C-alpha cells in the first residue's frame, strides 16, 4: 500500500508510542495530592515544558485539549465570548474563507446562535490571504472585532499563510489573532512568541503523536471563556482529568518533529517535487493547486480536469493508493471543496481535485506506485465523468 494521506493522519513515532505505553502503565491522576498523583503531575508538567520550549511558548501558555477541533472551538468561541463580555459592542469575527471546518463551523455556530457578525477574508487564486486586506477590514470594523482567525497552513491545498504579518496587523488594531497550526507544526518553522499570535492550535496525530491530544497555546494576556466546566484544570480554561499518557506521547512527538523539521522538510519536499513533476508528465490537463513556493513540504494537490475526485479516489484505492478528496460531510457525500471555490475554482474543478500528502514514512516507492496507477485511473475516471454528463 502507498499511504499518501499523511495530512489526514500520520503514523505514530516509535518514541511517542513507547512513551505512551510506559506512562499508561502508571496509575495516577495529575490532580491528586498523593505520590501517584504527584508522579502523574510531574509527567504532565515536564511535557508542558517540552511543548512550550519546542513551540516558543511559556509553559503557562500551554493548554492541553482533546485535539485540534477542541482547540479551534475553544479559541474561536472562548475568545469571542470573553471579548464580547469585556468590550462594549464587540460582536464580530474575522475569519479566512479557507479554514478547516473546525474553525469554519465554530464561527458559523456563533453567527447562528450568538448573533455574531462575520467578515470573511478572501484568498487569491493560490489560496493566500492578504495582510493589506485584513488591515482594511480592521480599519473599518476594528473596534467591534472580537478575534481574527486564520490558519497557518491550509490542510487541502497546502498554502502557507503570512501569519506573522497578519498577526502584526491584528495586534496593531488591538485584536487577538488565532491560528490553526495543525498542518504546520513539524512541517514549517512555528514559533508562538515570534509569530505574534495570541492563540495557536496544535494536534498530536498530524505530527507522529496520538490521536485525541492537542494543545491550544494561549498568550497569558488573552482570556478564553471555557467550553468545558468541571475540575478547573488548565488555568480553569479546560476542565477534565489530564491524559498523562497522551500528553507525554504528544510532547515527545512535538519535540521530535520540531527538532527534525528542517531535515524532514528538505527530504519530503524533494519527494513531493518529484511526485508533482511526474504527475504532470504522466497525466495531461492537470492543474496544480496552491502556492507553488510557500507551501507545506508534503502537500501535492491537483485538479484532474474532467474527472470526479471521488471516482478517482475509488480507482486508486483499488490499486492500494490512499489519498483524499479533501473534504467530506458526515454522510460521506463529496462536496465541492470550499477552499478551491474560495480560490476562484468553478464547481467542476473543485470536484475534480485530489490531495496527495507525504509524511515521515514516505518513500520514493510510494511515489512510484502512484505514478504507475494514476494515468489509467485518470483515463477511466474521465470516461466515467463524460458518461455522467450525457443524459440517457
Amino acid at each position, binding site marked *: 500500500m502507498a499511504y499518501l494521506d499523511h495530512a489526514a493522519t500520520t503514523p505514530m513515532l516509535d518514541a511517542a508510542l513507547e512513551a505512551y505505553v510506559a506512562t499508561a502503565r502508571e496509575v495516577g491522576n495529575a490532580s491528586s495530592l498523593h505520590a501517584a498523583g504527584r508522579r502523574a503531575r510531574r509527567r504532565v508538567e515536564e511535557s508542558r515544558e517540552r511543548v512550550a520550549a519546542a513551540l516558543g511558548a511559556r509553559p503557562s501558555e500551554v493548554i492541553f485539549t482533546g485535539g485540534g477541533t477542541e482547540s479551534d472551538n475553544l479559541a474561536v468561541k472562548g475568545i469571542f465570548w470573553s471579548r464580547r463580555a469585556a468590550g462594549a459592542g464587540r460582536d464580530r469575527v474575522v475569519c479566512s474563507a479557507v479554514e478547516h471546518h473546525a474553525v469554519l463551523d465554530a464561527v458559523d455556530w456563533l453567527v447562528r446562535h450568538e448573533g455574531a457578525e462575520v467578515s470573511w477574508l478572501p484568498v487569491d487564486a493560490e489560496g493566500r490571504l492578504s495582510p493589506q486586506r485584513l488591515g482594511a477590514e480592521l480599519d473599518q470594523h476594528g473596534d467591534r472585532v472580537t478575534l481574527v482567525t486564520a490558519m497557518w497552513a491550509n490542510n487541502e491545498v497546502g498554502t502557507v499563510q503570512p501569519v506573522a504579518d497578519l498577526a502584526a496587523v491584528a495586534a496593531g488594531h488591538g485584536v487577538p489573532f488565532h491560528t490553526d497550526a495543525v498542518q504546520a507544526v513539524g512541517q514549517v518553522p512555528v514559533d508562538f512568541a515570534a509569530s505574534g499570535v495570541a492563540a495557536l492550535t496544535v494536534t498530536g496525530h498530524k505530527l507522529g503523536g496520538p490521536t485525541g491530544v492537542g494543545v491550544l497555546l494561549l498568550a497569558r494576556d488573552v482570556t478564553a471563556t471555557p467550553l468545558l466546566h468541571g475540575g478547573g484544570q488548565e488555568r480553569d480554561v479546560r476542565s477534565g482529568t489530564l491524559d498523562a499518557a497522551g500528553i507525554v506521547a504528544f510532547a515527545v512527538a512535538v519535540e521530535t518533529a520540531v527538532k527534525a523539521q528542517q531535515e524532514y522538510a528538505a527530504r519530503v519536499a524533494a519527494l513531493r517535487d518529484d511526485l508533482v513533476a511526474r504527475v504532470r508528465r504522466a497525466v495531461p490537463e492537470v492543474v496544480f493547486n496552491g502556492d507553488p513556493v510557500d507551501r507545506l513540504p508534503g502537500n501535492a494537490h491537483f485538479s484532474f480536469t474532467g474527472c470526479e475526485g*471521488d*471516482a478517482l*479516489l*475509488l*480507482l486508486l*484505492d*483499488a490499486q492500494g493508493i490512499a489519498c483524499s478528496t479533501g473534504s467530506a460531510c*458526515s*454522510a*460521506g*457525500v*463529496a462536496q465541492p471543496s470550499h477552499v478551491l471555490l474560495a480560490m476562484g475554482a468553478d464547481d467542476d474543478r473543485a470536484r475534480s481535485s485530489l490531495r496527495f500528502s507525504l509524511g515521515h514514512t514516505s518513500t520514493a516507492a510510494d511515489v512510484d506506485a502512484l505514478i504507475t496507477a494514476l494515468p489509467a485511473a485518470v483515463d*477511466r*475516471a474521465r*470516461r*466515467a465523468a463524460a*458518461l*455522467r454528463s450525457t443524459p*440517457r
Partner: protein
Amino acid sequence: MRVLAAMSGGVDSAVAAARAVEAGHDVTGVHLALARNPQTYRTGARGCCTLEDSRDARRAADVLGIPFYVWDMADRFHADVVDDFVAEYAAGRTPNPCLRCNEKIKFAAVLDRAVALGFDAVVTGHHARLGADGLLRRSVDLAKDQSYVLAVLTREQLDRSVFPLGDSTKAQVREEAARRGLAVADKPDSHDICFIADGDTRGFLAGRLGEAPGEVVDALTGAVVGSHTGAYQYTVGQRRGLHLDRPAPDGRPRYVLSITPKTNTVTVGPAEALEVSTVRAERPVWTGGARPTAPVECEVQLRAHGDVVPATVELTDGGLHAELRRPLRGVAAGQAIVAYRPDPAGDVVLGSATITA
C-alpha cells in the same frame, strides 16, 4: 468478477454483498445518497436515505472487509424519480417510484458509472432470481418477490445484474445476517415510499402541486356528486376518502374510475365499472426470450403484489396489448403490466410495459 454492491443499509443488500464476497467476486460497496438533504428524511428505518442507513451500510461493508463509498445520486434521483412521481400524478396516472428508481437510477446511472469505472456488474439485495439462463424469475419467497419492480430492466441491464437472494426466504436472509454478525439482521423492513418519510403521499403531492379544487362526477348519471381539492390525490380503484355529497341512487359504494387532468375531474362509479379486460401499455421490454411476433399465452400482474391472471399478450408497434382471461379491478395508468410464464422453477418474467389504458 469485479462487482459493485449497492448497499441501502438494510439486511437484504448486506447479505447480498456478503454472498457476492463468498462467491469469490471482488466486491466494492456503494451507498446511494438519494436525499438532497439527508436530515429531512431522517425517520429511522423507514427508507434508504437517512444518515443512519448510510452508517448501517458502512458498518456492514466494514464487517465484510470490502471498500465502501457513498455515491451522490440525489440530483438524478430527484429528477428521474421524485419529479417524475409528481408529474405522473399530475397527469392522472399512478406511478411506481421503486420501479422507476430501478430503471433510471440503480440499473442505469449507477450501473453505467460502475461499468465506466471498470466493474462488471451491480449486485443488489432484490428478492428475485436471475440465473445462468439469463431469465428473471420470481423469488422463492413469494411474499417478498420483487420481480415486478425489476421487470422493467432490459436485456443489457439484466446481463450486468446479480441478485444473490432469489433462492432464499426473507427469514433465511435474516438468519444468515445474524450468523454473519451483521448488525442489520433485525432491522425492520422498509415500507412505503422512501422519499415520503411520514407516509403521507397526499400531503406530499399537495405540497408540490398545490390545491386545485374540482368536481367529482358520477360516470352513470354525469351528475356532480362531490368536490375535491386536487385530482392528483386520487388513484383508480380508490373507494375511501371520496367524501361524496350525494349517495348513489342504488346505495352501493362508488370507486374512482378515472382521473381527467385536463378538466380536473375525478369520475366515480360502481365496482363493476372498474373491471378491465383489455390493457394497453407503452414502452415494452421483453427479456424472457426472443421478441414474440404472435400473441403469447401467459399470466400478467398489473401492480406490485397484485393479483395474477391468465392473459394473451401481444407486442404491437411500440406498445403492448393484453386481453385478460378474467377481468381485474383497479387497473391504473402509470403502473406496469408484467407478463410471466408459469414455471415450477420460478415464474419467468417475459416482459413488461407501462399501462396507458
